[in-house]
């Protein structure tokens, strides 16, 4: 994998005091523009919420499986049959900006794709 950002290390659930920088970083990751007043509020609110999670750190969960699905089941397989797609106009009807049959967005500063896949 190109990225080595993954589930590394066991972190500490008690890292509850968020710094202003961290809040700003998270806002960027989440693509949320926050006004200074919002950032300020967010710092306090998130910190106070996070203190609740220290209770979790104290619980011994060694060997306890993570519940990824409430009811255990296997993934169902769908037959490989192509069904009719949405008409082009319907697909594009809600797009805030389009050019013919293409959806238009402002360009990013970076040329080309910044992410893997193509």
């Amino acid at each position: 994998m190109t990225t080595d950002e993954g589930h590394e290390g066991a972190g500490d659930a008690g890292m509850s005091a968020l710094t202003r920088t961290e809040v700003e970083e998270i806002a960027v990751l989440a693509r949320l523009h926050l006004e200074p007043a919002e950032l300020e509020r967010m710092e306090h609110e998130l910190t106070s919420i996070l203190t609740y999670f220290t209770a979790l750190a104290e619980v011994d969960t060694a060997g306890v499986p993570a519940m990824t699905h409430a009811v255990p089941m296997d993934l169902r397989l769908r037959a490989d049959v192509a069904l009719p797609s949405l008409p082009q106009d319907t697909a594009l009807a809600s797009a805030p900006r389009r050019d013919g049959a293409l959806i238009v967005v402002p360009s990013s500063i970076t040329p080309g794709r910044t992410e893997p896949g193509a």
Partner: protein
Amino acid sequence: MSEPRALPALLEEWEPVIGLEVHVQLATQSKIFSPSSTEFGAPPNSLTDPLVLGLPGTLPSFNQAVLQHALKLGVATSSQIRAKSRFARKHYFYPDLPKGYQISQFDEPLCENGHLDVIIGGGLKRVKLQRIHLEEDAGKTTHVGQTSHVDLNRAGVPLVEVVTAPEIGSAAEAGEFMRSLHRLVRWLEISEADMEKGQLRCDANVSVRLRGEDRLGTRAELKNINSFRFVEHAIEHEIVRQIRILESGGRIIRETRLWDADRGQSAPMRSKEEANDYRYLPDPDLPPLVVDGQIMGTILRTLPELPSVRFDRYQKLHGISPDDARTLVSERALADYFDAAVAAHPSERGGRMIANWMLTELLGALHASATPVARSPVAPATLAALVVLVENGTISGKIGKDVFEESYRTGDAPAAIIERRGLQQISDTGALWEIINRVVGANPKQAEAYTVGGKDGLFGFFVGQVMKETQGRANPVITSDLLHKRLGR
């Protein structure tokens, strides 16, 4: 300032370390997580449905053909297949990623620790694969001035990502790996793998280190490589770039670089944010993907014999040269043709002759008429029959080529053609002796020049005369033998 050394010289001191991440588009009717069509080349945004558009409230459902295709590849690469694998959401924001995340696999991929045998030179080199996992493709974004234009037709098309261990040692090897993988996925009929259509894409992680060093150097990632040639060029270019930097005391920056084929160079992608934090999350909408004995049984039963196995077998069993074997396994239809022709041949030793005929006459005719092997007008059994007729002396090799051409053109059986045109080889020594006598008698001057005067070149003249008399049907070996006797030397 001394001349910069060329790559071969640099490679005496430096060792390139290359790992490839290859995306292969799987050939299915519908997308991996929704039932809209995967058709190529449709008008933009005409192959979408609510899930492809990432509309609120939509949920993924998994296409079983994707599993079957991926398992074939997993088995063909001797990978460990996970009985329960999971899908994970990989988050990032980009206009052609409708949900704001890509459904991929992270912790528990479908296949791990396989290998691909790459045909290099005369032999096979085993390249280890770290993993093969399933994921969905994104749409396409094109840049037009200050804006980007998005087409979501491709969003949701099924992909497998094949990740090699970082142990490919040269650009050439990387190119061969790509060719081998290309051939294998087409062989297994799981992908068309047309690089120009974006059905086979390669990202390369390249680093260099001094030979003998254990530690890996800092790597750069190359993207936008969309042909086999560019795989080699881009990687070679990168190796040289890195070595030059290191030799002049610089450091390699860990970055992603885009290959510019027109300019023959790469440039770093300037990204606004630093590292990619994909915040992987096991997808709560998709329970674990289970591979059971029944599914595996079907895959194992229906898997064709692999190119590398046949490559080996053709050399060992049929005595075919490595180059010829490589050509025979370049395409499954060709290898299947060969196997069928050999099976139709009465003896077990027909392989080499059949290979020769295939690689010269058959391929030549197919290329000239732009016909795929599978639709060859000359069937494998027919070719085998023709080879037998040459082997047993019914016709000469030269006449055989003629018969092949006519059979290819008309579809008539070789035996019928030979019969109709009276092309049977003349091998009767008595008859040939008579003809030779006539010919030599008719050309006394040449005979003397050859026998007494030592003009070796005239032997060919007499052979030619005999052939003329017999419309090319004289058995060349016997003719030559008898001529030598008649001419005295």
